Every structure is written in C-alpha cells, then in structure tokens.
C-alpha cells in the first residue's frame, strides 16, 4: 500500500499518565488498525498473592490500582468473607458503600479532567481537579490517607466515620454538587467539546456485548448492566438504577460518567441517612477454603476476583479481571476509521487504567 505508515503512540505520551503503546497503522490521517502493546507496568501481583498470607493480601490488592484502591480491597474482602462464612455488620456495609461511592466520585472527577485535557481544554481540567481535592480531603480526614485509604478489612472496616465527619461529608457533597452544576454543562453542551466527542469512537451495542465491554463503555451502548445491581454491601437496600445512554460514542461515555457523579452523590447521602449503629468489624474465624467469584462495580466497570483457597493461610490462586482489561478489545474496535488527532480522546474515553490491566 502506498501511504500506509505505522505510528507508535506511547509509551511515554503527554496525554497518558501511564505507559501503554498503541501501534497505529495509518492511511494518510486515518487509522486503519491499532494494536495495543502493554507490559510496562506488569508486576506479577497474582503470583505475589500466593506468597503472602491471605490477610496481608488486602493491602496488596489495594495497590493493584491507586485510583479505586478501596473497591479492590472490598472485592477481595467480600470473597474471603464468603469463603469463611462470615458477614460484615450492617454499619460496616454502609461505610463500605460510602467509601466506594466517594471513590467513584473522585475517579470520575479525575477522568472528566483528563478527558478535558485530551481535547485541549486545560482550564476545565484544572476545575475538575480543584473540585476533586475536596473529596481527597474527606479521605484524608476519615481514612487517614489521601489515595490508598486502607480502610477495608476482612469482616468489615478498619475505621469508623464519626458523626462530625459524616456531617462534613454531607457539606462537602453539597459543595461538590454545586460545582458539578457549573462545570458539567461545559462537557455536555459546549459546541467545541461536542464537535470533538459526538460520533467519535462509536461502537454498536452488539459489538460492545460481543467484545465483552464493561462498565460505562457497555452502559453507553444502552446495556443496563452494573454490578451494583447484585446488591453487595448495602446497595441492595439503597435502591439503585444503572445509568445508560444509547449512542455508544465518546460523548455518550462522558454523559454516563457525568450522570453517575450525581448518582454517587445521592447514594452517599442516602447511605449516611440510613447508616445504622453497631460494630464495624466481625472477627473472622477459621481459614478460607473453596473457590469463589466476587464481582463489584469499579468506576471503570465490572471487577471480578476469582479465589481458590485450600484451607491453609495462603491462597492457592487469585485471579483479578479488571474492567480496563475487558475494555481493551472494544478500544481496538473503536480506533479504525478515526483520525489520528482523535486517538487521545478515544483512548481516554474508555478510562484506561493500565496498572489495573497488567497487575
């Protein structure tokens, strides 16, 4: 072919905070095919989990991904609880909802900012990240750390949230919501933004299902699938409807996440209103034995942990399937036909988390 060139995109690229390489084959300016090359972040966590004790693994799996660390720990702890036949106390379940929704909220803020940066809107990026700091302060106060909060434990949570802090969370959420009302319309209604996102990186509903998409990528195609529907932690008691959009392009994915921000705010409020009193930690007894699958919803989509334990204090196998791992094949299907300048926007539209993907 005459004008075909292969351009490597990454591993170090200003748009990507993390290293991934896409080999893009171009015909003039149009992408013909894309092949992802990963392996820059691979550590071998699944093997390390076989070496460490199952209680220590909580801290290991938290560090699969720093953005949604709590949700990783939650998924792991729920799996172990299932194997040991214990149940977290009602209060712990609600606390888990509060922390996971706050994590979703901060992750979506982070993504909306990076997305704005990808289409060259730097001041919007700054605004989202400024608002995100309010949420980071909550983590700092309630959990003792900004990013990796280490509050989930097998059998419940390690920390309680005091009434003072609960009120503080509610106040912060009011402020966050006020700021969202100001900034989200820019993403959703602005002419230039729409120009760069509507109709870009489109996949059909059939493709999304066939390629095993997860989370907002799947829901942007009208598939109402959200693992929170399974009713883990206290989600079953909070009432929950997944957010869906129908267009399956970058704009629809942004819209899903934007609406999920409001949903998370509502869920935290509801959880705080209904928060029961009581113990936060149920003491685990015995050793985990058997095989179990645990699924939770991460900001990026469905997270699946497969555990196999043989009754010793080490696991036989821990398998982590993260949402970005599932969203890479849809990405490969989204890129052909788009223009080179749209590649960063499309790559970011799946909210890639490479450290999750490679573990």
């Amino acid at each position: 072919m005459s004008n075909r060139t292969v351009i490597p995109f990454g591993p170090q690229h200003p748009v990507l905070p993390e290293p991934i390489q896409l080999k893009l084959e171009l015909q003039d300016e149009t992408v013909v095919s894309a092949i992802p090359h990963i392996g820059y972040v691979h550590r071998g966590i699944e093997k390390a989990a076989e070496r460490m004790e199952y209680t220590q693994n909580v801290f290991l799996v938290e560090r699969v991904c720093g953005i949604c660390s709590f949700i990783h720990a939650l998924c792991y702890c729920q799996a172990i609880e299932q194997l040991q036949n214990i149940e977290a106390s009602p209060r712990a379940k609600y606390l888990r909802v509060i922390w996971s929704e706050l994590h979703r909220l901060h992750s979506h803020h982070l993504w909306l900012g990076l997305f704005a940066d990808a289409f060259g809107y730097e001041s919007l990026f700054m605004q989202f990240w400024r608002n995100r700091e309010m949420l980071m302060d909550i983590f700092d106060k309630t959990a003792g750390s900004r990013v990796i909060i280490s509050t989930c434990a097998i059998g419940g949570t390690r920390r309680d949230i005091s009434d003072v802090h609960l009120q503080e969370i509610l106040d912060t959420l009011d402020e966050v919501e006020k700021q969202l009302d100001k900034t989200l319309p820019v993403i959703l209604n602005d002419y230039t933004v729409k120009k760069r996102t509507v109709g870009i990186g489109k996949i059909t509903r059939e493709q999304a299902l066939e390629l095993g998409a997860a989370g907002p990528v799947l829901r942007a195609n009208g598939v109402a699938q959200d693992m929170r529907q399974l009713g883990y932690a206290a989600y079953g008691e909070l009432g929950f409807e997944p957010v869906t959009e129908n267009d399956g392009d970058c704009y629809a994915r942004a819209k899903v996440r934007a609406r999920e921000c409001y949903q998370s705010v509502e869920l935290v409020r509801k959880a705080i209103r209904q928060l029961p009193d009581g113990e936060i930690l149920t003491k685990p007894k015995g050793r985990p034995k058997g095989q179990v699958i645990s699924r939770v919803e991460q900001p990026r989509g469905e997270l699946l942990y497969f555990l196999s334990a043989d009754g010793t204090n080490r696991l036989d196998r821990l398998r982590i399937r993260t949402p970005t791992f599932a969203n890479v094949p849809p990405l490969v299907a989204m890129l052909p036909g788009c223009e080179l300048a749209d590649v960063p926007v499309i790559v970011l539209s799946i909210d890639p988390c490479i450290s999750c993907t490679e573990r």
Partner: protein
Amino acid sequence: MMETMEIKPQEIIDIPNIRDVDVSELLDRVKKAADEKRRFVTMTALDRGDHFEVLYHFDRDLHLEHLRVRVPKGQTLPSISSVYLAAFLVENEIKELFGLEITDIAIDYQNHLYLIEGVEPAPMAKDKPLE
C-alpha cells in the same frame, strides 16, 4: 499469625454453575454460548501439577456461567478468539504466564505481552519459586 501446625491442603469446593467440557468439544460449546448472546467475561488458568485447569467465565444478565477444561501439560488448547475476539488478551496472558500452548490466537504476541527477552518464561507455574 505464626502457624504452629501446618494444615494439609484439602479438596477444593467448586464454584456453582460450572460445566466440565472436553478440549475437543470446547469450541462448539463456546459457539453455543455466543449464539445465546452471553457476554465473555474472562478466563482463569490454574496450575494443578500435572494438568492445567482453564475456566471460561460467561455472563448473562448478571448471572455467571462457567466452562472448565482440563489440559494435560504438554498438550495444546485451541483459541476461542475466532468466536470471541475479546479473548485474545487473556489467552496471550495465560500462554505467556503459565506456559500453556494456545493455538491460533487472533492477535498473537508470541509470548511477549508482559515479559521481554531475558526474563524467565512461565512465572505463574506452580513449580516456579514464589518470588
């Protein structure tokens, strides 16, 4: 905590909704799952000493179903990426990290998905040291 008595590994209880299939009928089964519009979630490989156990996880309306094949070491497993393209990444991963030969993967990374030359192959296999 420190263990005073080593507990012997015991028989592991399976996850629900699991169906054992033979390697030869695997592709037909997977095709059937695709026809019934099941979403491919992922695959899991387990090293069981003399054979590999490979689990295929499918989702349908938040309900998980699994297929399980047992492959003796040294034998090959056909790729399902012709039916579910989404499987290409995880098949490459299993091939590279466990050393289970999977044939005809749609995009084959030739054992260099995660590791580069000079790294010991198949680090996830049970006979490899734990560090």
